[in-house]
């Protein structure tokens, strides 16, 4: 426990002073904020997917519910950002309960299927209601919060960092409490878990609620940061899947796996999107710009990050079932 806490403290300290070294580079700051966000989302997903073994394919719904609730409240009179976050958490928990309370009565893949269905219902609802701005989304103009300079990246950097560190501490703490042991037992064998006095229904719902609440906070921070949301940005199935892939590639069921996965995948996505890799290959002389391969790289690689995620995931599942983090650990020590 002390070692884990020390590692979290070290990580927090390093991340807290990082902006001082970045200078005023909004591009890099934006990438790191995205990393922190994906790491928070993946860590949140990890509680229900990695610890309890219940795969949610619809975590975008909770992220989006936080983002939409916050944006709606901010455009209808800004009751203060903490209240917006709290309201988002409440909405997400209701959505989580609607899913979990029904589907956790069943076992097997029903939850995974239902989570997709519920997320799609949420997305289509947001796409068709007036209050959510339909397909146009919501543009937020007033995000003022006390004396903070909301045009700077710093408040969002530290807000996301706080959320991530909070989620990590919570996960580390869970892992050592009865609740955490119960979630792991449910993941390993539900019949055995039940025979040892574990109420499967109760604990699966608890895990989902906790996970949904954390994902919702990430959504709220994102909405205030970006100030414009629509369904494709915050409620897409693609986002749900990216959250899962981040966790699996980093190391499912581990504390640091989601952080590692987010760091790698966000960097990779950015490198592909800005066509850094294609440019690098051309500059290094590996391919000439005019050749067929060079043209292909220039034209297509920027859109290929989801494809590359997919390939990495397949390779991870085949060769590193415990993720990249699992490579460095002996089997058996979770």
């Amino acid at each position, binding site marked *: 426990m002390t070692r884990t806490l020390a590692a979290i403290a070290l990580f927090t300290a390093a991340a807290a002073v990082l902006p001082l070294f970045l200078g005023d580079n909004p591009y890099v700051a934006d990438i790191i904020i995205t990393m922190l966000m994906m790491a928070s989302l993946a860590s949140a997903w990890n509680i229900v997917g990695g610890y309890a073994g219940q795969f949610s394919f619809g975590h975008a719904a909770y992220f989006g519910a936080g983002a939409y609730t916050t944006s709606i409240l901010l455009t209808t009179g800004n009751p203060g950002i903490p209240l917006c976050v709290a309201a988002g958490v409440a909405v997400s928990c209701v959505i989580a309960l609607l899913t979990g309370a029904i589907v956790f009565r069943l076992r097997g893949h029903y939850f995974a299927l239902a989570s997709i269905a519920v997320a799609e219902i949420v997305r289509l609802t947001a796409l068709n209601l007036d209050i959510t701005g339909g397909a146009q989304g919501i543009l937020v103009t007033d995000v003022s919060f006390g004396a903070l300079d909301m045009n700077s990246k710093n408040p969002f950097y530290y807000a996301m960092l706080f959320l991530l560190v909070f989620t990590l501490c919570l996960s580390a703490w869970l892992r050592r409490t*009865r609740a955490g*042991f*119960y979630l*792991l037992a449910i993941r390993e064998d539900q*019949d*055995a878990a039940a*025979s*040892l*006095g574990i109420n499967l229904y109760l604990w699966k719902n608890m895990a989902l609620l906790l996970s949904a609440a954390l994902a919702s906070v990430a959504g709220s921070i994102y909405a205030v940061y970006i100030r414009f949301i629509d369904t494709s940005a915050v409620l897409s199935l693609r986002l749900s899947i990216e959250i899962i892939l981040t966790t699996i590639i980093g190391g499912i069921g581990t504390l640091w796996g989601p952080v590692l996965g987010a760091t790698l995948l966000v960097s990779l996505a950015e490198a592909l999107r800005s066509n850094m890799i294609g440019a690098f290959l051309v500059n290094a002389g590996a391919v000439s710009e005019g050749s067929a391969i060079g043209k292909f790289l220039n034209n297509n690689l920027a859109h290929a990050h989801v494809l590359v995620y997919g390939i990495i995931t397949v390779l991870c599942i085949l060769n590193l079932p415990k993720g990249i983090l699992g490579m460095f650990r002996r089997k058996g020590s979770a």
Partner: protein
Amino acid sequence: MKEKLLEITSLSKHFGGNAAVSNVSFDVEEEMILGLIGPNGSGKTTLFNCITGYYPLSSGSVRFIGRDITGMKPDKACRLGMVRTWQRVKPLGSLSVLENVMIGAFAKTRSPVRSRNIALERLEMLGMGGLGPKAAGKLPIGLKKKLELARALATGPKLLLLDEICGGLNYSETQELLETIRGIRENGTAIVFIEHDMKAVTGLCDRIVVLKSGEKLAEGLPSEITSNPAVIAAYLGAGYGHA
């Protein structure tokens, strides 16, 4: 007369038209070891699944410590003090042996420290003291069976239902485990013990119930059961019954 701990009344379980258990009744008293024997497919494990809430009953009732627990979920039954082990072992494979037993102990306490102490004590009691940090999924079958027992014991049960706990063990391991089970009973836990090897149960049990094709064939003291012609016929074939 000791208190009745478990009362099973005309319990039946049908899978479609197939009666896996039909109209079985028996009681278990406090601190009793009851052997449940019968040939393969006679409904022993199905009966366990019905008692502990894994299968809904077709008819009949189960009472435990004076409460009707018919249809009660397994986790609730466990918290009342009735816990089972599995014939096909179910270790929480990627967790350590100690963590497996701690999860059992959490039925009694919320505190990780206390559950750890209970778990260490149970492992010590079963001679698995040094195995705590090992991955449960990597144990050989004999130790997995013992882990089942340690984990079940850690929940602090009043009644322990053991499903072929000796299966896969060699002679000396079996003798050792039977001795441990005797010790568990002396600490005040009643035991229902499924076994299809009659020799293993006759020395240990206070009472034996024999199942055949889902029906109760006989019930009585071990000496009565071993000399019961119907039981001998079921086990060895009709010819021996009249010999």
